[in-house]
């Protein structure tokens, strides 16, 4: 019942060519590793500074090092990790908000979470919402934002993943930031 490690490299390749089912399978593989590394580093030192970049790096080592590193795939791993981390964090925040409501269970809708969560997590939800909307408008720009914020990639690395020139990616980033800024400031104070 264990997933074979050789799959990951294949999955990455499939995902890179746009295979949607490979994405969900990758999620299932990457998530446990991320989670374990994350909890390990926190339990070691409560005040540890945990960055997304470090997290992703460590997971990459763990997963792929046995097979030997295929250079091009490394960036793509970062890209998929960004997506995983994004989902994981959003789920986490929503779960938290549900709990804060007390014992009785209510299905939390996105808009409810937005108004009642503490400001940091609120920002993550707002960010998620903004990216989701941006995906409909300029999908590539949305990917750039996702990769920057959720796995700490540089624009250079992003351009490798997306196969576009750095100038193009910079332009995407510029628009995405304006869009994001506009979207986030729309929310206003709680």
């Amino acid at each position, binding site marked *: 019942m264990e*997933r074979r490690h050789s799959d990951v490299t294949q999955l990455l390749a499939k995902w890179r060519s746009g295979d949607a089912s490979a994405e969900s399978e990758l*999620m299932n593989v990457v998530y446990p590793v991320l989670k374990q590394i994350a909890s390990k580093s*926190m339990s070691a030192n409560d005040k540890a500074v945990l960055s997304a970049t470090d997290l992703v790096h460590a997971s990459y080592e763990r997963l792929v090092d046995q097979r030997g590193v295929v250079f091009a795939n490394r960036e793509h791993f970062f890209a998929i990790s960004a997506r995983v981390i994004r989902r994981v*964090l959003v789920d*986490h925040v929503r779960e938290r908000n549900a709990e804060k409501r007390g014992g009785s269970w209510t299905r939390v809708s996105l808009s409810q979470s937005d108004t009642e969560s503490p400001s940091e*997590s609120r920002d993550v939800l707002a960010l998620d919402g903004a990216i989701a909307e941006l995906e409909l*408008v300029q999908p590539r720009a949305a990917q750039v934002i996702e990769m920057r914020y959720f796995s700490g990639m540089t624009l250079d690395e992003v351009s490798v993943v997306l196969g576009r020139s750095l100038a193009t990616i910079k332009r995407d980033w510029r*628009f995405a930031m304006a869009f994001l800024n506009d979207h986030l400031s729309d929310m206003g104070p709680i």
Partner: protein
Amino acid sequence: MSSPRIEMLQRAALLFDEWVEETAQVRASRLAALAQDEPGLADTLQRLFAAHERALEQTNSEVMASVGATLRDFAKDTDTLADGTMVGPFKVTRLIGVGGMGQVYLGVREIDGREQQVAIKLPNRRAAPAALARFRSERAMLASLSHPAIARLVDAGSFIPPNLSASSSAERPYLAMEYVEGTSIDAYADAQLLSIDARLSLVSQLLSGLQYAHERLIVHRDIKAENVLVDASGQPRILDFGIGKTLDDLGTSTAEGQRYFSLASAAPEQIRGEPSSAATDVYACGVLLYELLCGVGPLDLAELSVPAALDLAMHGVPALASQRFGALSPDAQATIAQARHCSPAQLRSLLEGDIDTILARALRKEPEQRYATAQAFADDIAAVRESRPIDARRNDRAYRMRRFIKRHRIATSLSALTAIVLLTSVVVLRLQADNLRQTRDTAEQVADFQSDMLRKVIPRESGHRLSKDVLAAIEALPMDAVSAEQRQAFKQLWNQLNATDLAISVVDGSILAPAKTAIAEQFKEQPLVDAALSHALAGAYESIGLSKAALPLAQRAVEIRRSLSSNKDHLIDSLTDLGIILNSMGREEEAEKILRENHDVSIKLYGAEGVGTINSTMALGFFLSSNGRLDEAEPYYKEALRRNRLEYGDRNVSTLTSMNNYGMFLANRGQFDAAEKMLRETLDLQLSALGPEHRDTLTTLNNLGIVIHRLGRTEEALTFIRSSLVGRRRLLGSKHQRTLRTLGTMAMLLHNLGRRSEAETAAREAMSELTDSIGPEHPDTQVPTRVLAALLIDQNKLSDAEVILRKLTSLPTSGVPENETLLTKSLLGGLLIRIENYDEADRLFQEVLNRRRDLLGDAHFDTNTSVINLAWLRVNQGLHREALSLLTPIESSVRNLFRGSHLHFLSTYLLQLGIAQAAEGNFAAAEAALTECMEVGARNARDLHRDLVERHEAMVDLYSRWSKSDPTSNATQKLQEWQQRLATVQEEKPR
């Protein structure tokens, strides 16, 4: 599907890139210019530039900080259990994996002296106590599954994790499954080089396990190769049985839009979020078998984006296995065949025929067209292995006959069962309501509650929601009310029906009629409940188009409620319903009386400014407008809109409906530009408040399409109508009246664009379905019928067209908006001209023109078309002077109104004008008109060959007269030219 709003944002993105490097002044001036035409776009751009100017660095670091903080929070939440933790009787050995639904650990316990290994599944989210209780009762059912092909549920329960994190609820449920060591079925088959026969055998064993579980009402929902392991003895074992459903009950499925199912094996109904059934597992098994046999999956989902993949999975029909295999490269074929211990040619011929058919049946998009049970699937596989004929291939007629009989059997047994379901659910609710009574003591609230339940079982929208709710109702029944066998039989029967396309008579006969009887009997002594249920039933009938059946029920509800002094709200509701029903049956006077009474009651109750009067105001406005009393209607519309906005704001459903209605009202008055503006605004709000697939959004899409068409931009209109059609098909089914109405409208637009064969297909479909369901006299049926008649006229099949049109005009006109009858008469008049029946045409055209002048005024689009038609007649009658007196005054209106896709009318206008001028000796004017007519005609999408010929003939006629009257002009020369051209044109084949 992208909405107008998304498209606008995309354009904003492009412009942003272009302008961002300009100076602020340049940007400002460009924005100002843009704001003239497209204020929405300019506004968005402005905001984006403002955002761009703000301190981006600050935003950047704020976002980074919050992501980091959340990450830390997440990491601190130590959910993972340490090795050695006790979960119930099991000791955790290690974490195996984490899926979308939770974590999986390997665990172990000692039992009967040996070690038992289990896979412990921990769902992610905290479960509610009520769900936990339910989960406990379900586990008995799951644990009882004992079959060689199924990995057993060993234990289930809840435990308290040792390291309590910040969460409040400590108890967590777990499921312990038999831990199976083995290889996934596809890897196993390849490693063992299993032949086709051996693979079939494996899947048969799998199906036997499925059948066993289905008989116990447990559906797997996630059958795929990874979930079927083959152990050392060669026995396939299905993992995770019942998990999907149980976790759903615990409320642990992931947030909306993040369902973790396997796209490749998900059945269409699963993707749509509808309930699963045995047929869903059959589908997934079909996918598995397909790949096991021919080496590739049925649908090629690789390289597709997520939305495209979803779309393909829902609608794409897979190719036959043999064909899909045959289309692979020789290398791929060789590898695959090798793993199946045969040659590519052998493999291909094995797949062709019976195996192709079996797979195709298992993979049908509609659940009821697949194998109804896993056993049936297995039977056909056995037949193939034994070289017997398979069931799936019996000839069509026999199959249809069987289905017919089955359907009737279904209908009769359904009605008995459904009556039971309804009665018992009402009984159950009464028991619950008794509990309620202790806290809320009014009898009315009880009645409310019960009628709500009924409304859930018979919702206003037919379609897949019906299915969902009925299945839920059956699930909710206590064990002793309905026996397990009855329940199972009901579910099986129900799942074989496609609720979306149910024939109306089946719904009526099986569900509504028994409910009616049940109500009459049960609630003889309880007028309140009687009224509530009658009201709900009336609504149900009305929503599926059976107004006649709805009427007595609605009247009953009103009667009862009138006599009761309490709760006037209900009386108002029922009065509104009754008014609407009467109006749709053409009984306008009665309807008006009722609606005015309604309005009075609500004013008395709530005061003129009260919220409760909004609905009755809207109802009156709508009623008046639908009966052509537009001036009277206007104040009601305005008032309703004003109050809706005041009370509820812009994003409320009621306000949006009001806006939509007002928009259509403006359209009725011919104020198309204002209507377009209003409807676009409404649509924008609806898209963001309700979403693109809400029925109200779809209605506005439809209306907007119609208005834009009127404005002459039919291509653009078509996109809206198409969106509405697609959405309605999904939401309401392809046979719903509204869907068909949209189809009829689309036919009309296509005809206008000259896309005649598409128009004909759409019109025929709409017409035949609507004739069957609501009859030929209904206005909705008249639209596609008229399109067909127009198409016939275009094809010169005049007598056929005449038959249709005469039939239409002979139908009763009550309940039909006058607009429609006039259009039909106009079309008939045009036809009569072509068959030279001028007297009758004269009568018709005069009648239509006068009515339109009265109703719509002189400036209206329709009135002007009538004038042109009459002039056309006059020209044919040789009354050229009269024709000119009709045509000359309307020139500027004509040029203004008939642009874009309405060039057809301008072209006719110019032709008749030219001919008349020529006949009256105004040669220069005639030449001008006809030359322009040539050019316009070339641009007209609807232009026919015979129109082209007519124009050439007119030219020839003009120059012939001219040259006779003035031999010195160059008219003779031109005459020869045009005679040549005419000859050429006449020889050409018509388009």
